């Protein structure tokens, strides 16, 4: 936009200031009607834009977008009129400060207009040598509306590059083009929490990484939970069919101790397993290596392959009481078993899903 540089020197300072004053007045008049949003910013530039168009021909580059106004011409403005671009903030922010209860117009601004505005702000910051005051004022106003409105909001959200000054309140910075009242901010926080949960659910349910919509995701979640419930039914049926399930004296089996959160290498004693099954069982339980299990050194048995001899590990013998059932050879007074060395589990903490999820650790691993 080289054409703009020439007129810049032609206009006097007064003429440059006049539009800003007019905007401020406009802003205060219209504060009751218009919400603080992008469209308003754009609309307030309209009178200036027409004036400048007459001066130089940069209208060729202007595209008209759905809001109809001045988006294309922002590019014309930003380089040449840094003070106007930054001054644009002030009347609007002034309006925002006075407007507390206006309706949300957040999503109506198109994404392309947001991009241009962020370009504006960036350029205005670059050229903000003389306009430092204005910028700071605008920032402060935004802080106050953001901070006072939502002390309970969680995450700072900001599209701009500057950082929020520290204070007692938890700041939620209003995004550009979005209303700053407490309702919409809380609403946005709620929405972000929901989307975070959806992400976790996406990680949990297999094969959901491609699905983006909420309805599709919910569908998958429903199917997953239903399938898990059905699996529980099926497995309980199968366990019932297995006759019988091994009976173990629970207290002694678990060493009579409290379950430690840290997993130590332990062992399971399997009752009544013959040598052929050792390998099988090792394989089966080898898959358990990544997880649990038991932490009872009292149950360490030496590997026993022999037929029912008096393999009395006396400590064990006293520990384990095998209740009578058809499978266990009740003649066997002694227990012989196998020691399975199970690897140390990956003791990853169960991230409490009651809202304490660490926001910076969203990866889920099995």
């Amino acid at each position, binding site marked *: 936009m080289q054409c703009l540089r020439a007129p810049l020197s032609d206009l006097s300072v007064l003429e440059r200031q006049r539009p800003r004053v007019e905007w401020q007045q406009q802003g205060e008049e219209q504060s009751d009607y218009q919400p603080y949003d992008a469209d308003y910013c754009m609309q307030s530039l309209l009178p200036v834009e027409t004036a400048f168009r007459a001066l130089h021909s940069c209208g060729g580059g202007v595209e008209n977008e759905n809001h109809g106004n001045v988006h294309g011409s922002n590019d014309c403005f930003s380089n040449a009129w840094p003070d106007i671009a930054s001054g644009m903030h002030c009347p609007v922010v002034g309006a925002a400060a006075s407007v507390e209860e206006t309706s949300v117009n957040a999503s109506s601004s198109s994404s392309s207009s947001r991009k241009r505005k962020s370009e504006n702000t960036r350029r205005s910051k670059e050229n903000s040598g003389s306009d430092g005051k204005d910028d700071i004022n605008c920032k402060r106003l935004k802080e106050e509306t953001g901070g006072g409105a939502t002390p309970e909001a969680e995450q700072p959200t900001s599209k701009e590059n500057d950082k929020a000054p520290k204070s007692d309140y938890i700041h939620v910075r209003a995004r550009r083009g979005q209303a700053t009242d407490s309702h919409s901010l809380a609403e946005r926080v709620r929405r972000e929490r929901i989307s975070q949960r959806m992400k976790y659910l996406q990680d949990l349910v297999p094969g959901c990484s491609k699905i983006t919509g909420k309805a599709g995701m919910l569908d998958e979640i429903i199917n997953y*939970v239903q399938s898990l419930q059905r699996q529980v039914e099926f497995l309980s049926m199968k*366990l019932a069919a297995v006759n019988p*399930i091994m009976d173990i004296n629970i207290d002694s089996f678990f060493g009579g101790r409290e379950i430690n959160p840290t997993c130590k290498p332990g062992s399971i004693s399997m009752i009544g397993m013959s040598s052929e*099954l050792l390998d*099988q069982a090792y394989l089966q339980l080898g898959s358990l290596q990544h997880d649990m*299990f038991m932490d009872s050194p009292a149950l360490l048995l030496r590997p026993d392959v022999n037929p029912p001899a008096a393999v009395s590990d006396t400590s064990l013998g006293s520990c384990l009481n095998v209740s009578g*059932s058809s499978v266990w050879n009740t003649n066997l007074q002694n227990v012989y078993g196998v020691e399975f060395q199970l690897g140390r589990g990956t003791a990853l903490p169960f991230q409490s899903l009651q809202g304490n999820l660490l926001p910076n650790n969203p990866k889920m691993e099995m």
Partner: protein
Amino acid sequence: MQVRNSFKLALLKQMLLGFQLSAVSSNSMSVPERKNAIKLSADAAMVFARGSTRWTRGLVAGLSENSNNEDLLRGILGKKYERLSLPCRSSWKIPRSRKILKRCLGLCSRRKKATATQHDVKSGSTLARRLVKKRIQVLKKLLPGGESMAGFSLLDQTLDYAVSLKAQVDIMRRLLKISKASNLNK
């Protein structure tokens, strides 16, 4: 999902305890009875291991409706049973107030629709919203105690419940494997 080993351990321990208490290994029970006892033990163990959340309380409430189960539940849950069977402080008021709200909003929207112009084709967003609503209703029925939850807490509890269910399935599968392997030694 990251599930602590202590969770799985506690689950297994309580499940085995439940098996013992209900004497599933005895031959006196029929297969369906045994299956129900096993399932009950598994669910109660899951509740015990997880602690107190909305879905666990809902699950306990659902399970204790059947008077036969109460002994086993008490046996497995112990002291926690009393705590878990208490209704949540707001559990009954919230769905009531939500129903009232929905009724009012429904009336308002119906009035608006009556005055507004009729559109033949539903706009995309309304359709999406309807789909989501339907699915949320289904999810509420699935989740124990889900009727009284809405929005964020529903999703949160679903996540929690799904993780716990997965751990439960995992434990049961392994138990099955081990039992089968040990049974081959007959």
